[in-house]
């Protein structure tokens, strides 16, 4: 029983961390129709920034700074790598995203020397707490709560403010919203800023729970978060969050199965199997709107 609770708890927390990344994917895809392959690596860079900054300054300064720099990074990436290709075919933008991801990974390898880096102990998050007889870290409890608060805030932003209205308009129809006087580039920048900020928060939570960061550490969580976004229906924020929680829980259950079966290799593969099943049977995802192609 205690084992089940601990598996579930860590599943929910992993799911929450994926959710924070998945929102970035779903927002960008909703507006640009682009799988932002570099998003997972932005997440990894945020983790590395966390290590370097916490080494030199107190936590309450370094973490906001991490978020700030990550936001700036996301903004720059969009500006430099995606904006020049706005009118190019979708495939070129995706290739550009892969190129950015390659660049970030290689730069991270260069800076860290390829060594796995240990994430610093963040005072409150890493301390343990006793839940229903199982020892766990505070971050595990805090993640889902934080995710729900952030998603609520984001939902308010999208549904109640002018910027949010513009974002919805742009994701519905690029050209028409431009004709209505919406500054498309500004809105896209805002999207990247929000996505990167959430990825930075996610990285603090994610890497507190993990022993080390390697330059490749962002690729897999990134892809999984994208699958979560597809699973929930791309473009839908609640969908992405629910999808991320489901994937996180399933993954930890698979990892927690008896080691005699030796199925933990499949924890990553399972996510992709789920993706393929979803794409075949319900391509619009759980909460997505079915799109019709115009000839």
């Amino acid at each position, binding site marked *: 029983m205690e084992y089940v609770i601990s598996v579930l708890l860590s599943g929910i927390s992993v799911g929450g961390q994926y959710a924070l990344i998945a929102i970035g994917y779903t927002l960008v895809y909703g507006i640009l*129709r*682009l*799988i932002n392959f570099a998003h997972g690596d932005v997440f990894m860079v945020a983790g590395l920034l966390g290590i370097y900054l916490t080494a030199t300054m107190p936590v309450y300064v370094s973490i906001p700074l991490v978020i700030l720099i990550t936001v700036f990074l996301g903004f720059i990436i969009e500006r*430099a*790598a995606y904006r*020049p*290709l706005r009118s*190019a075919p*979708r*495939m*070129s933008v*995706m*290739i*550009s995203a*892969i*190129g*950015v*991801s*390659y*660049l970030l*990974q*290689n*730069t991270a*390898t*260069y800076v860290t*020397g*390829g060594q796995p880096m240990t994430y610093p102990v963040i005072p409150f998050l890493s301390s343990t707490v006793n839940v229903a007889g199982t020892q766990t870290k505070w971050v595990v409890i805090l993640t889902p709560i934080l995710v729900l608060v952030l998603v609520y805030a984001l939902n308010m932003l999208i549904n109640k403010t002018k910027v949010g209205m513009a974002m919805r308009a742009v994701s519905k129809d690029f050209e028409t919203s431009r004709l209505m006087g919406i500054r498309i580039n500004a809105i896209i920048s805002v999207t990247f800023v929000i996505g990167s900020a959430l990825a930075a928060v996610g990285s603090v939570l994610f890497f507190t729970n993990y022993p080390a960061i390697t330059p*490749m550490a962002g*690729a897999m969580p990134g*892809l999984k978060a*994208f*699958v979560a976004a*597809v699973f929930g229906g791309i473009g839908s924020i609640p969908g992405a969050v629910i999808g991320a929680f489901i994937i996180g829980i399933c993954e930890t259950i698979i990892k927690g199965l008896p080691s005699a079966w*030796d199925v933990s*290799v*499949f924890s*990553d*593969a399972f*996510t*992709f*199997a789920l*993706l*393929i099943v979803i*794409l*075949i049977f319900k*391509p619009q995802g759980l909460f997505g709107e079915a799109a019709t192609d115009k*000839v």
Partner: protein
Amino acid sequence: MEQKKNISRIFIGFAILFLIVILLENLSSFIPGLPQVFQPTSPLFTVLKKAAVYSLVAVSMNLLNGFTGLFSLGQAGFMLLGAYTYAILMVPSDQKEQVYYLFGGCAFNFSLLDMFGGIFGKTGVGGAISMIISCLIALILAGAVAGFFAYLIGIPVLRLKSDYLAIATLGFAEILRAIFQWQKLGKITNGANMIKGFPTFSSFNITNASGATILRLSTFVPFLVSSVCILIIVLLINSSYGRAFKSIRDDEIAAEAMGISLFKHKMLSFVISSFFAGVGGALFAMYVANAQAKAFTSVMTYEILLIVVIGGVGSVSGSVIATFLYVACSEWWLRFLDSEQYIGGFKVPLLRNGFRMVVFSVVIMVIVLFFSQGIMGGNEINIGAFLKKISSKSERKR
């Protein structure tokens, strides 16, 4: 008549290329005291071998991405299938015990090499024949397994559009990688460990009775296999099927309206591309002398995709040129960036392990952003026409 001449010119071109390659790798044994570049251990030959292997994979990816317009990212998965098929079929029986020692031997006690060795003999000319035939069959089977899996995967996946197709094929590659690393299949795949002990490129070097190398063919072999495969792909692209592929790329709806069966042609392109990716994977296993699932990650697919983009999406010769440039830069020419360099007494800043890849990815980004046509755009270098030009020029001189 003109076409026939063109074809014969192409064959002459390839024959010249092969001769140059063989000459180059044997130069050091004819003329002693050559600079290090021409020694068999020089990076030149590493580059040539690796680039020959990669160019086949790049062209196979280009067939799918550039000529049929299917954005697939599953190439590493199909390479993995090819590499493992080749490795499992070719490890000699007496080595299996040693390779699979963690799992107490191999469940699959068969080796093509032994089978043909039993027919033609294991040494001398018979040994050479059995080696060549078994290698050839193993390469074809490697492609066939990859093609068969592509067929199975294609049935559900090819209905998807652009980026969904990309992510689904990427997912399949990851699933395949997980399956091959599964310890329960260890008796066949050797789990997460590598399979080795099978014939590699250097097994094709001709040695005399005392074991000294007489004629090196280890660079020629990948060149030959890749050239033949690329030639087949080019013939396919120039056939009516190739035209159908291009029409699907340019406009699916119009192509369908003209009576081209979308699914059939997409499947054909997907299976053929995967077949050659499988052959390329087998060649890759020969190049690195082992087969290990860990090597075939999505990073490898990205690398090949970037090569295709640098060469020009939709250009076979572009892909080949880009592969040689890419591999030469990453394995050889830019190596100096990874270690500290001094110009006179001045220590060049920033140079340290990993800097090469940073410079490299910046260059790639510049190409992707500002030269999106790549080296060749959609154009081709026509070897036949090129040779014709040269020959007519020399005639005019006379």
